C-alpha cells in the first residue's frame, strides 16, 4: 500500500493539469446539465451546450486515464519502471486509486449534486448511485483503461480509438445491409455485461502482471468480433426462446387475426430502408384479466404465398401495450419490399410470433394535479408542462420511473376556473420502464421522462382541451409477471389490404 501511495503521489504531481481539467469539466457538467431540465433559466441561445458539456465528461476521463496509465506504460521494452522494484498489484492499485480519486469521487459528488438540484435526497438513492458507478466501470472506465493498457503513448491510443470507431462503423454498415434485424429486448443483459467486464479485467491483469501485450490485444479483438458477430448473426431464436418461452396459454390471453383490415385507419411513415415496407396486421384481443395488461415487446412474421414461397422477418421491436377491455389492436411491421411487390396481388397466409410481457397492476395513487411540482411513488418529481399544457414531465432519480399507467380527464375550458370542470376526454398515457435495476447507466443521476396523453374519446378529438391544476390524475404501477411467446395464424389474405395510408 505504501508503494501504491507513493506512485499515486507522483502521478498527482505530474498530472495536476489533466486533473484540474477533468474537475473543471465535471463542475461545468453539474452547473449546465440541469439547465436542460426546463425548470431553470433556459439555454435556448445555445441549446447544444448541455449536450456538449456532457460529451466532454467522458473525453476528459479518457485523457486522464490514458495519461496516468501511460505514466508507467505497459507496452514496450524501454520503460523506466520495468527494471525498478515495482510490485504490479501496487502499481495497479496506484492507478485504481488515482482513477477513484479523480474520476469516481467527483463523478459521485456530481451525481449527488444533480439529485439535490432536482429536489431529491442523495442519501435516499445510495444503492442507485453505487450501481451506476458499477455500470460506469464496466461500460466506460474499464474499456478506457484497457485501451490505454495496450498502447504505449497517447497518439497510439488515439489510433486504437480510431480503429475501434472504424470497426463499429463497419459493423453498423453491415447491420444496415440486413433487413429488419433489430431485436431490442434485454435478453442477455447480465451476460452481456459480465462477459466483457471479465475480459477487461483479464486484460488489465495480464498487462500489469506479465506485460503480454499481444495476448491482451488478441483478447480485446476477440471480444469485439464476438460481440459484433453475436449482434449481427447471433442465435436470436435461442435468445428470444430463452427470454420468452412459448406459451402454454396459462395467461388466458387469446389473440387472432381480425378479418376486417385495420390498415385504412392507421397511418405510418415510410420505412427508412427502401428495401422495406410497412404493413399493419389487425389483431383481435381477448382474455386480458382486470388489473393486468399485456406488453408486446417483439414480433416476428412469416408470410407464405401460394406455391410455398415464404419470407420470414427477424424479430422486430414493437412498443404496444394492451389493456383489459381492449378488443382490437394493430401490429405494424416491416417486410421485404421485394416480397411485397411480388405477392401483393396474391393471397398469403401470415404466421406471427409475439414476444409478450404480462403485467400486473399495483396499488393506484390518485391525486389532484398540483399547480407546480408533485412527487410520485418511487421518488420522481413531476409537473404539468408542455406547449399545450396537456402533458406531464418528470425527473426521476437514477433511472426512468417504474412503469405506470397515468389516467386523467381533460377540461374543455381553459384553466382559469378555481375548480376544473373535467368535462373533456379521458386521457391515458404510459411512463417508465419495467427494468428493476437500481440505476440505469448514465452520466446523469436524474432522468427526464414525459407522459404524452392519448385522448380516448374521438368525438371531440379536434377540440382544444386542457390538463388543469386540480384535475384528478391517477398513477397505476405495473410490474412484469411473466414473459411468453404466442403464435397466431391467419386465413389467406391480401397484402395490399394491410398497407396503411402514408403521412
Amino acid at each position, binding site marked *: 500500500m505504501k508503494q501504491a501511495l507513493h506512485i499515486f503521489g507522483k502521478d498527482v504531481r505530474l498530472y495536476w493539469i489533466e486533473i484540474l481539467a477533468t474537475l473543471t469539466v465535471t463542475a461545468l457538467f453539474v452547473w449546465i446539465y440541469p439547465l436542460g431540465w426546463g425548470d431553470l433559466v433556459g439555454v435556448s441561445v445555445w441549446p447544444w451546450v448541455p449536450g456538449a458539456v456532457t460529451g466532454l465528461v467522458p473525453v476528459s476521463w479518457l485523457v486522464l486515464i490514458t495519461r496516468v496509465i501511460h505514466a508507467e506504460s505497459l507496452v514496450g521494452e524501454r520503460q*523506466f519502471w*520495468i527494471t525498478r522494484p*515495482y510490485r504490479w498489484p501496487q502499481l495497479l492499485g496506484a492507478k485504481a486509486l488515482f482513477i477513484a480519486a479523480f474520476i469516481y469521487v467527483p463523478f459521485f459528488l456530481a451525481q449527488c449534486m444533480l439529485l439535490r438540484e432536482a429536489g431529491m435526497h442523495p442519501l435516499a438513492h445510495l444503492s442507485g448511485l453505487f450501481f451506476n458507478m458499477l455500470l460506469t466501470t464496466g461500460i466506460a472506465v474499464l474499456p478506457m483503461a484497457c485501451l490505454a493498457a495496450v498502447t504505449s503513448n497517447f497518439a497510439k491510443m488515439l489510433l486504437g480509438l480510431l480503429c475501434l470507431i472504424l470497426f463499429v462503423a463497419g459493423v453498423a454498415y453491415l447491420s444496415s445491409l440486413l433487413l429488419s434485424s433489430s431485436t431490442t429486448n434485454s435478453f442477455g443483459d447480465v451476460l452481456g455485461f459480465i462477459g466483457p467486464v471479465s475480459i477487461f479485467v483479464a486484460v488489465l491483469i495480464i498487462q500489469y502482471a506479465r506485460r503480454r501485450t499481444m495476448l491482451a490485444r488478441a483478447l480485446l479483438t476477440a471480444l469485439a468480433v464476438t460481440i459484433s458477430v453475436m449482434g449481427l448473426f447471433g442465435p436470436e431464436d435461442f435468445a428470444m426462446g430463452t427470454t420468452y418461452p412459448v406459451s402454454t396459454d396459462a395467461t388466458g390471453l387469446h389473440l387472432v387475426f381480425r378479418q376486417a383490415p385495420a390498415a385504412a385507419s392507421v397511418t405510418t411513415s415510410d420505412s427508412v430502408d427502401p428495401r422495406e415496407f410497412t404493413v399493419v396486421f389487425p389483431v383481435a384481443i381477448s382474455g386480458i384479466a382486470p388489473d393486468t395488461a399485456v406488453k408486446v415487446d417483439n414480433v416476428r412474421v412469416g408470410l407464405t404465398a401460394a406455391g410455398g414461397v415464404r419470407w420470414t422477418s427477424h424479430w422486430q421491436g414493437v412498443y404496444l401495450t394492451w389493456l383489459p377491455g381492449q378488443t382490437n389492436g394493430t401490429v405494424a411491421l416491416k417486410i421485404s419490399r421485394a416480397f411485397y411487390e411480388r405477392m401483393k396481388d396474391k393471397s398469403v397466409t401470415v404466421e406471427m410470433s409475439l414476444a409478450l410481457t404480462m403485467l400486473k397492476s399495483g396499488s393506484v395513487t390518485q391525486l389532484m394535479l398540483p399547480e407546480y411540482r408533485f412527487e410520485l411513488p418511487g421518488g420522481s418529481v413531476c409537473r404539468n408542462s408542455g406547449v399545450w399544457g396537456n402533458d406531464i414531465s418528470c425527473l426521476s432519480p437514477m433511472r426512468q420511473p417504474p412503469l405506470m399507467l397515468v389516467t386523467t380527464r381533460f377540461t374543455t375550458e381553459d384553466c382559469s376556473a378555481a375548480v376544473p370542470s373535467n368535462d373533456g376526454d379521458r386521457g391515458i398515457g404510459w411512463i417508465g420502464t419495467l427494468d428493476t435495476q437500481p440505476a440505469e447507466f448514465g452520466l446523469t443521476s436524474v432522468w427526464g421522462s414525459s407522459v404524452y396523453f392519448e385522448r380516448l374519446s374521438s368525438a371531440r378529438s379536434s377540440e382544444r382541451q386542457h390538463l388543469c391544476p386540480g384535475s384528478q390524475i391517477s398513477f397505476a404501477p405495473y410490474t412484469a409477471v411473466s414473459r411468453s411467446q404466442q403464435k397466431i395464424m391467419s386465413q389467406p389474405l391480401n397484402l395490399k389490404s394491410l398497407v396503411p395510408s402514408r403521412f
Partner: protein
Amino acid sequence: MSAAIETHSLTKHYRRTVALDRVTLEIPEGAVYALVGANGAGKTTLIRLLMNIFPPSAGSATVLGVASGEVGGHVFERIAYVSENQEMLDALTIGGLLDYVRPFYPRWDSKLEAQLVRQFDLPLQRKLKHLSRGMRMKAALASVLAYRPALIMLDEPFSGLDPLVRDELIESLRERSGETTIFLSSHDMSEVESFATHVGFLEQGRLLFSERMSVLADRFREVEVTMSAPANMEMPRDAPATWLNTQCSGATVRFVDSQFSGETPAALTALFPDAAKISMQPMTLRSIFVAIARSGRTQKIEIASEGEAG
C-alpha cells in the same frame, strides 16, 4: 565463488531471425564482465532476457539465484539496470527522480547519493528532459548506485559520451567493483579493457567465448616467424586450427595464436626449425577481437567458459 548470472542454452527468436543462439555462460559474483560484440550481435537481447523484459524462446537463466522469468518486483532492489536507450521520467528534475526512487529501495544510502551527486556534478533542479545525453546517463547511474546493488547491468553505457564523462562513469564503476557484480555491454573494446575482469564475445547471436580477461590475454599472441634465408614460405601442413589470420610473405610468417601456452615456443621451434627469429607479442583486447573477426574461422575457436577458464 557462486555465480551472479548463469545461462543455459539461452535462445531468442524474432520470428525467423535468431537474435540469440544457445548462449551458455557463468559470471562469478564480484566480476566486472564486459560483453562485447558488433552492433546487432545480440548484446541488448541477452541483457533484456536476463532482466525479464521479455521471455526467452528457449533455454534458461538465473540472475542472483533467481530464474530470469521471475526477475521483477523486489528482485530489482538488488539489481541496477541502466541502458543507453532507456526511457526516463522526463517530467521530473534530477532531484525529483532521486526523491521518487529513494523509497523503493530499503538499502538506499543517502550519503552515497549525496556523494554521487557531487561526484557527477548533477544539477538537481534541472528536468531530465533538458539534460544532455551524458548528464542523463550520470543521473541514471546515480539513481541506481545509491542503493548499493548486488548486480549492475549496463547496456552500452558509454555509447556516444564524450571522453570526460566516460572516464567519470568508468571511475565511479571502478570504485564499486569488488563489492558488486558489474555486467556491461559495449561495442567498443577499448573502453572496457581497462577495468573488465571477464569478457565475453558475441557474434551474430552466438557467444564465441566467455572467460577471465587475464586468461584471454595470456591465451592470445601475435606470432611472427622470420626464416633465416629468404624463401617463399608455406604454412606447415600440421599447423593447428587455433592459428588465426596466417600470412606468409617472403621469409616471414605471421599469425595469431589463440591457444598460447608455456609449450607454444617449443612447439613453434619444432614446426619452424629454420626460423631465425620467433616473436610472440601479447595483444590488446581490441586487436584480439579484430583478429577473431577477420579470421573467418571463428567457429573453430575453442569456446572456453568461465567455469573452465576462470
